[in-house]
C-alpha cells in the first residue's frame, strides 16, 4: 500500500466506523415514539457531548485544567433566557422585540429572536467570558489555573443564583433561584418552529446538527496551526514560546473557543429544557463534564465523544433505572442500606475520575501523543507547567 491511492483508501477505511456510527445516531429517534423519554435523554446526551468537546479543547488540547466550565453553561443558557423569553418584559413595547420567530412568539412581550441568532449571541458572550476568565491565568501554573477557573465558575454560579438582586435599569440579571421560563421553542430559519409537546425528534436532530458542526470544527482545529500550537504549549511552554508560538494569543484562543462550544450547548439546553434554572450551575456540573473528557481520553476527540455518551448513559439510565430499580437496588435494600444511587451520582463520577487517573490516565480511547506523555513521561514532570514566559 505504498501508492497514493492506497493511502487514500486506508484513510477512508479509518473513517468508516465513524460514518456508520453517525448514520446510526441520526436514525436513532425513529426507533422510539416521538415523545419517548429515550429520545429526550439522548438529546441531552448529545448536548453534553458538545460540552465535553468544548472542555476537551481547553483541558485536552491546551492542557489548561479548567474546573469552572459550568460558567459557560450558565452564560449560554442565560443568553437563551434573555433573548427568547419575556425576561425583558417591556423591551420594545407590548409585542416586544422579535426577529425570525413564529407569529405567536412575536406577539409576546420581551425579546424573541431566532435560535440561530441566540446561538451566535451565546458564542459571542461565552467567547468573551472565556477570554476574560483566561486572562488572569496566563501567568499561572497548572494547579493555580484550576483554582482560578473554579473560583470564577463559583462566582458566576452565585451571580446567576442571586441575579434577581442585580438590577440593570428595570431588569434583573437573572430570575435568581426561580427559573427564567418559559423559553421559546426552537426555531431554525427555513425550518420553522418545533413543538416539544408533540414531538421531541426535531430537537434531537437539531442538537445532532450542532454536534456535527462542532465535531467538524474540532477535527479541523486539531490539525490546524492553532491546534499544533496548543499541543506544543501543553508539552513544553518554554520550547514552544522560543519556537515562536504566541503564548497569550494561543492560550486565550483555547479558552475562548472552548467556552464558545459550551455556550452553544448551554443555549440549546436552555431552549430544550424550556427554562433556565440557576440552581443547575454548580461545581458538580464542571466535574461531570470533566469526567467525560477524562474517561474518553484527554485530547482525543472520538474518545471524548464516547466518554460523554457513556457518562450521560450512566447518569440518565444506568443510575436511576438499573442500579436503583434492578437487582442491585434490591440487594442494597436487602443488606439494610437505605440509599439510592441517584443521591450519590456525583460520587460515582468522582470514583470514575480516580479510577481512570490511577489505572488508565490516557482514557478509554487515547490520543497517541497524549498517551506517550502520560505513560512514558515525555514532556511530563514539572517542566510541563513550571515554565514562565
Amino acid at each position, binding site marked *: 500500500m505504498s501508492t497514493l491511492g492506497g493511502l487514500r483508501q486506508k484513510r477512508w477505511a479509518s473513517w468508516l466506523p465513524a460514518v456508520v456510527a453517525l448514520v446510526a445516531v441520526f436514525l436513532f429517534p425513529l426507533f422510539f415514539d416521538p415523545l419517548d423519554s429515550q429520545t429526550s435523554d439522548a438529546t441531552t446526551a448529545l448536548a453534553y457531548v458538545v460540552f465535553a468537546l468544548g472542555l476537551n479543547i481547553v483541558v485536552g488540547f491546551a492542557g489548561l485544567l479548567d474546573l469552572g466550565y459550568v460558567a459557560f453553561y450558565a452564560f449560554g443558557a442565560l443568553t437563551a433566557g434573555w433573548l427568547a423569553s419575556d425576561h425583558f418584559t417591556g423591551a420594545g413595547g407590548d409585542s416586544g422585540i422579535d426577529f425570525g420567530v413564529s407569529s405567536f412568539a412575536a406577539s409576546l412581550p420581551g425579546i424573541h429572536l431566532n435560535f440561530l441568532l441566540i446561538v451566535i449571541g451565546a458564542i459571542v458572550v461565552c467567547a468573551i467570558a472565556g477570554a476574560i476568565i483566561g486572562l488572569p491565568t496566563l501567568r499561572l501554573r497548572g494547579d493555580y489555573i484550576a483554582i482560578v477557573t473554579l*473560583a470564577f465558575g463559583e462566582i458566576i454560579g452565585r451571580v446567576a443564583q442571586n441575579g434577581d438582586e442585580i438590577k440593570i435599569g428595570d431588569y434583573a440579571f437573572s430570575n435568581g433561584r426561580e427559573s427564567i421560563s418559559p423559553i421559546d421553542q426552537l426555531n431554525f430559519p427555513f425550518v420553522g418552529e418545533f413543538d416539544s409537546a408533540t414531538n421531541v425528534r426535531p430537537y434531537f436532530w437539531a442538537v445532532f446538527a450542532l454536534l456535527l458542526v462542532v465535531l467538524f470544527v474540532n477535527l479541523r482545529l486539531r490539525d490546524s496551526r492553532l491546534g499544533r500550537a496548543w499541543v506544543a504549549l501543553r508539552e513544553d511552554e518554554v520550547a514552544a514560546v522560543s519556537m515562536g508560538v504566541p503564548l497569550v494569543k494561543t492560550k486565550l484562543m483555547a479558552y475562548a473557543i472552548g467556552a464558545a462550544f459550551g455556550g452553544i450547548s448551554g443555549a440549546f439546553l436552555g431552549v430544550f429544557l424550556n427554562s433556565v434554572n440557576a440552581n443547575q450551575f454548580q461545581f458538580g456540573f464542571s466535574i461531570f463534564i470533566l469526567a467525560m473528557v477524562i474517561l474518553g481520553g484527554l485530547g482525543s476527540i472520538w474518545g471524548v465523544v464516547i466518554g460523554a455518551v457513556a457518562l450521560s448513559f450512566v447518569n440518565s439510565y444506568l443510575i436511576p433505572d438499573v442500579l436503583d430499580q434492578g437487582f442491585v437496588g434490591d440487594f442494597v435494600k436487602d443488606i439494610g442500606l437505605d440509599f439510592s444511587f441517584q443521591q450519590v451520582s456525583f460520587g460515582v463520577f468522582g470514583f470514575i475520575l480516580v479510577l481512570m*487517573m490511577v489505572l488508565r490516565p490516557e482514557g478509554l480511547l487515547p490520543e497517541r501523543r497524549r498517551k506517550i506523555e*502520560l505513560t512514558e513521561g515525555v514532556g511530563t514532570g514539572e517542566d510541563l507547567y513550571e515554565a514562565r514566559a
Partner: protein
Amino acid sequence: MEAASVSSPARPRGAGAWEFISKYGLIALLLALPTVYGVIDLVNDGNLARLGNNLVAGLSNGAIWALIALGYTLVYGIIELINFAHGEVFMIGSFVAFGLYGTLGLTESTGAGGLALGLFVALLISMLAASSLNVMIERVAYRPLRGAPKLAPLITAVGVSFILQNVGILWRGGSQRGIPDLIQAQRQLFEIAGVAVSRADALAILVTIPLVFLLTNFVTRSRLGKAMRATAQDPEAARLMGINVDTTISLTFLLGGLLAGAAGIIYALYQTQVWFFQGFTAGLIAFTAAVMGGIGNLRGAVLGGVIIGIIQQIADNRIGVQWTPAVIFAYLVIIMIFRPQGLIGEETREAG
C-alpha cells in the same frame, strides 16, 4: 519530582515598583472592607461595636479556617498538590465528632467536668480519624501518581473530594443537620465596650493557639520536621541524604489531617450543625487563606485564615450570606492575579 527553582533572571526595571504595588495594594484591599464599614458604623451609630463584633466572630471563624489552611499549606509545600479532598477530611472530622457525642453520652445536660473530659476525648478521636483518612487518601490516590504529570493527581484529588462528599451524604443525609449545642455556643462570656465574646469564640481560639504552636514547633525543631522541610525543598536531595521521602510525605498528610479533625470538632461545637457540603466551602475558603498568606508558609496560613475569617464575617453580616462565597472567591482571584506568592512573600519553590 525535580526541584524547579529557576533562578530569576535579571529583574526588569519597574519590578520593584510592581512588587510594592502588589504587596501594599493587596494589604489596602484587605483593609478596605473593615475600614469602609468602620466609617459607616461611626457615622450611623457613633461607635465601632458592630465592627468589633464582626472582628471577634471573624477571628474565631478564622481560627477554624487557619487550622484547615495549615493542612493545605503543609501538603502543597511538600508535594505541590492542591489537596482538594482536604475540606472533605475536615467534614468527616465534624461527622465523627457528632457521632462521638452519642458514643460518649454527651448531651446538653452533661456536667461541666464530664463535658470537658468527653470533649477532650472526642477531640483526640476526631483528630485521629481525620488524620488516618488523610494518610489513607495519600496512599491510595496520590502515591501511585507520583511522577505523573501534575494534572493527574489534581484530577484525582477532585475525584476523592467528590467520593467523600457522597460518603457524607450516605452517612448523614443530604441536608443540613442540627446537632446538640453542648457548650451553649452563643452564650456570652464577657463584653468589652459593646463587643461580646461568646463561648464558641473563646473555644475556637483557645484550641487553635496551642495546636498551631505545637505544629510550628514540630516542623521547625524536631528531626522529622527537619526531614519535612528538606523534602519540601528538594525531594531528590533529601532522598540522597537518607530521608525516607514516602514516610515524610505520609507524616505531612497525618499532620494536616490532625488539624482538619480539630477544626471539624470545633466547627461542630461552634455552628451546632453539620452537613456534607460544609467541607467544600470550607476547603475553598481555607485554600484562599493559604494562598493569601503565601502557600507553603505556616505563619502565612494562620494569618490568611484570620484575615479571611474577618472578611467572611463582614460579608455575612453586611453584604448578605448568599454573596459571601462570591466575595471570598473574588479575593482569591485578585490575589492569584496580583500576588500569587501571598502576603508573606517568601520566594518559595511553589510561588507562581
